[in-house]
């Protein structure tokens, strides 16, 4: 590449501006939330004194303890079950022979296009008839159903990118399909599995619509984004600093996970795009 000083500086400048824009909204609410309670804040101001009281207020008033727990339970369950089921199905697609393989894969893949926005209607009435509205199952079960399309697609690609030598060796040793899957293939594709888990966790944690429709009233089962929307929607005159603190409470787990796993997310998304 030719090193062009001016172009280099221009590009650098553009990226800096873009980064500032990317961070600015988050930074705004961080600064907003750190103000002492009751302070009339306008615009983008550095707080004169830092106070964490808004966080305590938001936590208590918004019931974010149960909400975060709920989000965690739902997300972990969805991810674990989805990854296991997707691995099993992907194994079948990648290693086993059965009729109509392409057609069934196509049907599963079509699931990637389905919008929740339309499907929540029968889901709501179905769960209502089963008496499962307002329970965590109402959130966990559909999300598994939605996640296995993406998960199977992902794991199948991971399995197919493996060369056959280890599997051949296991087969010669007399291993059956189950053993080959869990003792040989699955350990090899650990990076792909971790990326998938991170992505599915993100999708499950960030879900809002399913929670809004299916857990409308049971506060102990409501997830964090839902609790935040209720909290932020109440009382139009409510203190924006407290609402900002609440938003940060909800964002924090995802941000922490992002900081730790950042490489995985960006690599995961772009790798997924390549496969797609």
């Amino acid at each position, binding site marked *: 590449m030719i090193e062009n000083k001016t172009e280099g500086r221009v590009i650098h400048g*553009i990226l800096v501006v873009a980064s500032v824009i990317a961070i600015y909204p988050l930074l705004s609410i961080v600064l907003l939330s750190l103000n002492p309670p009751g302070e009339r804040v306008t615009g*983008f101001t550095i707080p004169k004194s830092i106070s964490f009281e808004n966080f305590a207020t938001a936590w208590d008033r918004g019931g974010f303890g149960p909400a975060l727990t709920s989000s965690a339970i739902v997300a972990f369950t969805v991810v674990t079950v989805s990854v296991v089921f997707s691995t099993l199905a992907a194994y079948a697609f990648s290693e086993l022979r059965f009729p109509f393989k392409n057609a069934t894969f196509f049907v599963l893949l079509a699931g990637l296009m389905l919008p929740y926005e339309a499907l929540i209607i029968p889901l709501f009435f179905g769960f209502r008839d089963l008496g499962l509205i307002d329970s965590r199952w109402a959130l966990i079960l559909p999300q598994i159903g939605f996640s296995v399309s993406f998960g199977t697609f992902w794991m199948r690609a991971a399995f197919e990118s493996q060369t056959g030598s280890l599997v051949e060796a296991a087969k010669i040793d007399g291993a059956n399909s189950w053993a080959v899957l869990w003792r040989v293939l699955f350990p090899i594709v650990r990076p792909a599995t971790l990326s998938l888990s991170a992505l599915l966790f993100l999708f499950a944690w960030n879900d809002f619509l399913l929670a809004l429709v299916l857990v409308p009233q049971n506060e102990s089962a409501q997830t964090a984004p839902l609790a935040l929307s209720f909290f932020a929607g109440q009382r139009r005159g409510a203190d924006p600093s407290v609402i900002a603190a609440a938003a940060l409470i909800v964002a924090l787990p995802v941000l922490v996970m992002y900081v730790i796993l950042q490489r995985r997310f960006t690599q995961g998304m772009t790798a997924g795009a390549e496969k797609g």
Partner: protein
Amino acid sequence: MRRPPLLGRRTLRGPQPIAFLYLLPAFAFFVAFALVPLVQTVLLSFHEWNGITDRTYVGLENYKQVFTDPAIREALQHSIVLIIFYSVLPITLALMIVGLMVRVRVRGLAWFRAVLFMPTILPLTVVAVAWRWIYAPTGPLNKALDSVGLDVISRAWLGDFTFALPSLGLVGTWVTFGLIFVLFGAGVQKIPTSLYEAARIDGAGAIREFFAVTLPALRREVTVALVLTVTAALRNFDVVFVTTRGGPGTTTEVPSVFIYRAVFQTRSVGLGAAIGVVLMLELLLVNLFVLWYRRRGEDGT
């Protein structure tokens, strides 16, 4: 790279029934919670129902209403407008930036990538709350405009009949840009520098280089970006619901919020289902178009 399945039982060529067991869990959930609801939504769209008493079959009445009711058409139009903000704008910006990026070595690219990608991972309710503050009458945007003397422009952005929709649109741009940028950034890294050298030898300037080398090589990434962002624009629910709920008036009405209101407030479940089906068909069209576009590209090269 595809290779044939490696495992066989007694027969070397025959089908393996055990595959059924491996497929069962995933498919059971998929059928129960995705396919069956899909069919049910379609069926519901042909009925009129308030959610409690009996359903009445009404044929295509709901669909007629979808295409003639001005409120619904407005919502559909708004979702198309949002495509410009969620898709066209950030993809164009990202292409320009990435096009420039290939010509120079950027220091700290990993750091930029990490920061720019961050908005994509945030829960949308958090995004909505943050931007609601920025757009607030006493919020940072207006304060910034006032401080440079542009206070004629400052207003309650999300309460303004003209500017509410574009304001929400820009939130979408903010969310999707990072993903697109990272996607394209990874894509250009795969372009062999020999192509650029060849172009330069031919005397190509920056712009020709972009259209001759960079853009064609990014075809796949552009199609993925299009699918993801257009889908997000058409399905958009969270941000609108938490900020404006379709207001002021109906200026930020979008199909997903309309469905929610139809099913849970005005109790026209069939109508909501019909809008949902239309939404699904739109998404299907987008995916098919993109697939076709990519096939065309792959044959061409």
